[in-house]
């Protein structure tokens, strides 16, 4: 009897779980199926990309802070795609919330690095007593700087820049000195913990965003760009006049983070505000 009920219950619950499960699980499996296929899903785009040598591409990234809704999907997608440890201290990308008050004060937060969105700490409750003038979200990731200080300081050349303008880490070579973490002005780097199980199976070495190098070299978009429901993240080839990044850069006025440091970041921000850094 009890058995039956629990079985019925199981089917009932199972149905609900299944629906939710399909929804949640479709994210990683979708992403995974993309990475597994040898053929890019969009043959036309692939054909176009195939005509060009990867070394002739020069990747660029745009974050549109006027569009970002702080849902945190990008953070989740990135963690699943790149096997970034789930804890909020390890991030290849994260989302910050900026709050400006009428008297010019600035408040910034990023609960769980934006992984779970911001609804658990809504602004009207968390900043109840403030006279807020405006507020917005700023997605962050490695800027793949053109003049990357992290590459300059790496004592063993484990961090390097590719021809197509992406900064990568050879994790089988990294000695874990963490000089690059000190040198990156944007907090883009972190150390893989002892218990991590990333694609390269390395621990105690440095990791950071690669703009999903394994995907973009196949003609796919970075996972965060692909998942963003509002198109706040735009990616493409800076040398291709028809690429979405190029088009947007010629239409909008953009800014980069900490330009005075001379790192020449390649993540451009639309809707920038003084105080964002």
């Amino acid at each position, binding site marked *: 009897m009890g058995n039956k009920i629990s079985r019925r219950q199981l089917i009932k619950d199972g149905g609900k779980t299944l629906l939710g499960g399909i929804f949640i699980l479709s994210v990683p499996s979708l992403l995974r199926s993309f990475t597994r296929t040898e053929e890019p899903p969009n043959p036309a785009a692939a054909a176009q990309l195939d005509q060009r040598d990867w070394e002739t591409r020069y990747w660029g990234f745009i974050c549109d802070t006027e569009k970002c809704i702080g849902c945190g999907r990008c953070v989740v997608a990135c963690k699943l795609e790149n096997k970034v440890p789930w804890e*909020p*201290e*390890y*991030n290849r990308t*994260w989302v*910050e919330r900026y709050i400006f008050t009428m008297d010019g004060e*600035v*408040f*910034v*937060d*990023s609960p769980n*690095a934006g992984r779970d969105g911001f609804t658990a700490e809504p602004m009207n409750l968390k900043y109840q007593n403030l006279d807020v003038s405006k507020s917005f979200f700023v997605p*962050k990731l490695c800027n793949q700087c053109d003049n990357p*200080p992290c590459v*300059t*300081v*790496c*004592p*063993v*050349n484990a961090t390097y820049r590719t021809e197509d303008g992406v900064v990568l880490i050879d994790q089988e*070579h*990294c*000695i*874990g*000195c*963490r*000089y690059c*973490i*000190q*040198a*990156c*002005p*944007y*907090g*883009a*780097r*972190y*150390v893989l913990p002892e218990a991590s199980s990333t694609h390269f199976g390395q*621990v*105690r*070495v*440095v990791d950071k965003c690669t703009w999903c190098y394994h995907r973009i070299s196949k003609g796919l978009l970075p996972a965060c760009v692909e998942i963003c429901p509002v198109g706040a993240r735009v990616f493409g080839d800076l040398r291709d006049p028809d690429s979405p990044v190029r088009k947007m850069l010629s239409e909008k006025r953009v800014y980069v983070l900490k330009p005075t*440091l*001379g790192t020449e970041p390649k993540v451009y921000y639309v809707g920038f505000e003084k105080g964002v*850094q």
Partner: protein
Amino acid sequence: MEGFIYPNEGVVEWDLLITIYPFITGLVAGAFVVSSLYHVFGMKSLKPVARFSLITALAFLLVTPLPLIVHLGHQERGLEMFLTPNFTSAMSAFGYIWLMYLLLVLGEVWLIFRPDIVRYALSSQGIKKTIYSVLALGVYDVSEEALSIDRKLIKALAAIGVPAAFLLHGYVGFIFGAVKANPWWSTSLMPVIFLMSAVVSGIALLIGMYIVVAKIRRMPLDHGCLRSMTLWLWGFLSLDLVLEGLEVFTMLYESEESWGIVHQLITEKIAVSYLGIQFVLGSVLPLLIIGFIELSGLKENIKTPFRFVSAFLVVAGVFAMRWNVVIGGQLLSKSLRGFISYTPPLLGLDGILVAAAIMTLPFIAFFILSHLLPPWPEETRVGERKTLSFQQW
């Protein structure tokens, strides 16, 4: 944690081990400078500690790479710094500079102690004879002619050694000074400040060790030598204080965007170790004490405890300075909006116990080296080279 920090910033990546690393290199550089003041610049008053300081420098130099290697995420890949160096990295040159400097110091030690080594090799027996014969490297010529060539070589090595010591330590300062991402580190004064504080800490260490060793060995203290060292300490310390003050004053005067957080760092987060220990107890107070006692007509043996206390304060102050730079710099978030908190753990590779163990190693090395090659003045006085047997000490 306080205010906003970037999510990846929760950990202080360069911990206690990286704090003691520049501290140890600094002591090496300082001790070497003292020995060179005698060997190159002919400061006769420093003769009693000339050999002693060289052995001290060697003892600390041997331990220098240890904290750096222990700190790596992958110690087994440490050699890659030699094999695949990236010469734009301030860190990659370390291995080479260290090796060069080690060879130089070893060469100088060998030349200076050669007559003793030969004497021990000829007069001892058994295992001791073997050890000293190996150390003699097959060269037994101690004629006046050979020794005068030695002296020239010693002078040359000591002369090269001074810029080399400066390079070794100035470059350690550069590791931090060249990080533009960090407003508390990024200043071109950093290498010079590191250098000055290195010399200061080395001289102070020698003063302290000299007094302690003399007590233990019941050796009479050479007060002239002690006075000379204390005055040198005073000179370098004043210079050091001016430079360190200048650095912060410039930051305050220029009041760049980052000044707000730097100001908060030094007046709140590291106020005790910075204003309290580094500035007041480690610099101003010893300057006053030394100034007072060296000008006073006090008896020399009454001055000794004051000199000792000043030396101790200075070494503690320089350690605090290393802490304030290395740890302090990492407490402020690069978002310039918050602070990370850090208390060193007791256990573990990054803990206090390991750091303390590493800090005792140079003293153990010194103990062994000074038994092998006694640097004490009474045994080296020119003219009265009586044969020394191993048992005498």
